């Protein structure tokens, strides 16, 4: 029953691009202006996306934001842009809100006007309905009495209409009129009950239509073949007109697969399965101890919409193959869930990765720049750092309960193919450009979606070797 639910479920199905981490964090340049953009997409569609923009410079006069469909084949015009409001306390901080009217891939176009002239930046953002909720008690307390007044009132009005309305002034209704009024009221009550039944069915139909657009993530079906060959099938539970045959390569790979041993999260691999002729993915596994593993497979659709397909699998000991190409792995101590903050991870040959943590306390829903640096055995910035898949580094933020997973780049949580669609005029939208050799430090803009314990896997490349740093954080 939808009309009278007092105690109702409120659940957020937060599985979409990334897992449990719907907010978009992006650091980029609108011409000369460096911006850190946070977009919190709506949980229902159509709904309102909240936008926060922090400028690194003080010379911005105004910022306008406007939403546009991304990767959409039909011609479209831009609606009137909204003026982002500068904060009274912090003139470098701007906020806005935009309606995203349909499910799918969108971009927020940011037009900046400042002392160094006008410029533009586009940030991809997914709009998918994820929230399934019932009626809150407070609303029900208001609506149910009003509904009862309307229903009983209608019956009473019909009774009065039959009993009194046609009497000459001053006359009183006789017994026959009163009897007719009672009959009319009974008939009206039956009609009201019928109308409520019809309305309830209509409501159910509308709720069913909404349920069909609620995002249903792809699932990974895993099969171990020939001892070390992992077959991955993308299973589609059916959502809108999604297909799995339209994937775009991200850094040259159709899938980025994180394999993490659970529950300790002490072993991690970042792999890149190849798609075979059957449109399944295959990955030759490295040497792995027996155990249970969680899998997060990142893919990007042709319209820029990213998804993370998940699975868990029990594996026997794998003799395995050496890691090749962009595949990488790392190990660390078991995840501790009590008061642990890991800031330094020792790497082979005396090197270490250091979390240059500025904030003593980490809060959920706050955007941060997570800065890491690679040091040599003398504590100096390491030499010989290279780009890893076009980036200074790749990071994965995973909550201890594994309900949150986000694959983040130095530009943020936006997948590179989506960025290339949103910034078609920028030939470097999908990768970093370095004037000189890459520095030994990298930063990732990101915000934790909820409090809890998190493990952060950071990967950089030095002297042809991909190194993995493992850090822990407690978020309040």
């Amino acid at each position, binding site marked *: 029953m939808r009309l009278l639910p007092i105690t109702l479920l409120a659940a957020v199905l937060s599985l979409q691009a990334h897992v449990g981490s719907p907010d978009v964090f992006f650091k980029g340049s609108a011409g000369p202006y460096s911006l850190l953009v946070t977009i919190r997409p*709506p949980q*229902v*569609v*159509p*709904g309102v996306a909240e936008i926060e923009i922090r400028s690194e410079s003080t010379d911005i006069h105004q910022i306008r934001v*406007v*939403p*546009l*469909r991304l990767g*959409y084949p*039909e*011609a*479209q*015009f*831009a*609606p*009137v842009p*909204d003026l982002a409001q500068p904060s009274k306390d912090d003139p470098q901080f701007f906020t806005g809100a935009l*309606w995203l*009217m*349909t499910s799918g891939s969108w971009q927020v176009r940011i037009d900046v006007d400042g002392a160094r002239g006008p410029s533009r930046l586009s940030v991809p953002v997914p709009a998918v*309905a994820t*929230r399934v*909720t*019932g*009626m*809150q008690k407070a*609303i029900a307390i*208001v*609506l149910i009495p*009003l*509904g009862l*007044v*309307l229903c009983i*009132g*209608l019956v*009473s*009005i019909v*009774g*009065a*209409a039959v*009993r*009194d*309305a*046609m*009497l*000459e*002034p*001053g006359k009183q209704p006789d017994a026959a009129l009163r009897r007719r009024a009672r009959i009319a009221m009974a008939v009206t009550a039956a009609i009201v009950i019928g109308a409520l039944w019809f*309305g309830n069915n*209509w*409501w159910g139909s*509308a*709720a069913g239509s*909404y349920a069909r657009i609620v995002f249903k993530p792809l699932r990974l079906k895993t099969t171990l073949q020939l001892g070390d060959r992992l077959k991955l099938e993308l299973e589609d539970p059916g959502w809108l007109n999604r297909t799995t045959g339209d994937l775009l390569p991200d850094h040259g790979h159709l899938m980025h697969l994180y394999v993490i041993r659970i529950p300790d999260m002490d072993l991690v691999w970042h792999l890149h399965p190849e798609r075979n002729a059957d449109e399944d993915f295959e990955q030759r596994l490295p040497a792995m101890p027996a155990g249970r593993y969680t899998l997060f497979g990142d893919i990007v659709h042709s319209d820029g919409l990213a998804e993370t397909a998940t699975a868990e699998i029990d594996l026997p000991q794998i003799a395995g193959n050496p890691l090749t190409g962009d595949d990488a792995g790392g190990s660390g101590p078991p995840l501790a869930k009590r008061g642990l903050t890991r800031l330094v991870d020792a790497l082979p040959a005396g090197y270490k990765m250091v979390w240059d943590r500025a904030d003593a306390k980490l809060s959920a829903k706050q955007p941060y720049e997570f800065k890491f640096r690679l040091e040599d055995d003398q504590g100096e910035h390491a030499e010989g750092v290279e780009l890893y898949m076009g980036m200074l580094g790749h990071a994965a933020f995973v909550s201890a309960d594994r309900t949150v997973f986000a694959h983040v780049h130095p530009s943020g949580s936006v997948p590179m193919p989506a960025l290339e669609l949103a910034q078609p005029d920028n030939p470097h939208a999908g990768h970093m450009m370095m004037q000189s050799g890459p520095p030994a430090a990298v930063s990732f803009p990101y915000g934790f979606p909820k409090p809890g314990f998190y493990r952060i896997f950071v990967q950089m490349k030095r002297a042809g070797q991909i190194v993995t740093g493992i850090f822990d954080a407690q978020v309040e």
Partner: protein
Amino acid sequence: MPSVAHTPVTTDEERVPWYVWCSAAAVTFAMVGVHWDISWHRSIGRDTFWTPAHIAIHVCGILAGISCGYLVLSTTFDPRSALRECSVTIWGFRGALGAFIAAWGGIAMLTSAPFDNWWHDTYGLDVKILSPPHMVLALGVLAVHVGALILILGEMNRTSGALRNRLLTLFLYVGGMTLVCLSVLQMELSFRLLQHQAHFYAVVTMVTLPVLAGVARASRFRWAATSVAGVYTVFLFLMGRILPLFPAEPKLGPVYHQLHEFTPPEFPLLLVIPAFVLDLIWQRTESWGTTRQSLISGPLFLVVFAAVQWPFADFLASPLARNWFFGAKYFAYITRPGSLMARYGFVATEQGADLWRQVGLALVIAITTGWLGINWGNWMRRIRR
């Protein structure tokens, strides 16, 4: 005009009571607000609680609340009230029947606000007219219309002379606005591209015929149906011509059709012609029974309406109608360039058995709703309170 048997009560006062004016103003504000709001959503898209269109709708509730609240409270608690003897009693309160109906409508409008807000939070913003919370609002607005009709009728049936004529004019006006109100509910089912389907004619007949028949029968005016359809036509024509005079730009995406002015409602349906034919036939069949009248007038309305609207829809799809006067050049920002609407096409007419099923359904609806309308009008004739 035929003479009316009545019991004069308000013979001293030849002026239309203020609360009747208030009711008429309320329905006007409601319909202006609703059409403005729909146009707002088709051209600008984004709104707030405080848009002028919303305020106009809220004014409807305020006016209805003031007039009906005064009527009910003064009649209930003032023992000297002249209306006490001609009131109905509900839950211990006394007042004119129309006041109670309009008050019910006001509560329904009030209920729809938190319901609609919750609906948007739960299922996303709905960009359609027909949804459960919108239906609660529509029922409320419709009840304000019906309450105004009954309120005027109660006064009208208790008086005579010039005052009755003035009340009759108001009654026909509110009847026309009631038709406008119902036409909003069927708007999504009656766009130009649907007007070559039998289903469209069934829908329009279901909504229109009861209003025309009910108001005509209750008013006892020879040209009541024509007047009601005329009010509908003039109102929608004016809304359609005035709205595009004002600038508007889409504030929501995706924008498929670029526009620079408010998108007006489509050209009014040619209801005035079948309404005129109904008036002619009802003038000549006054002595007939209700069933015989509905057997004739229902199918007649349907046939005449189809005969004029079908070719007129062709005209509206032609280049000749793509101007300010006929309004076929205006589209919502969300109209896709390749859509049937934008290409001035029509949804295909039903074929074979489906066509005959829809035609049969339309005939049954015409006869049934005509019968209901005539009987509703007969009942309204006898209203005294």
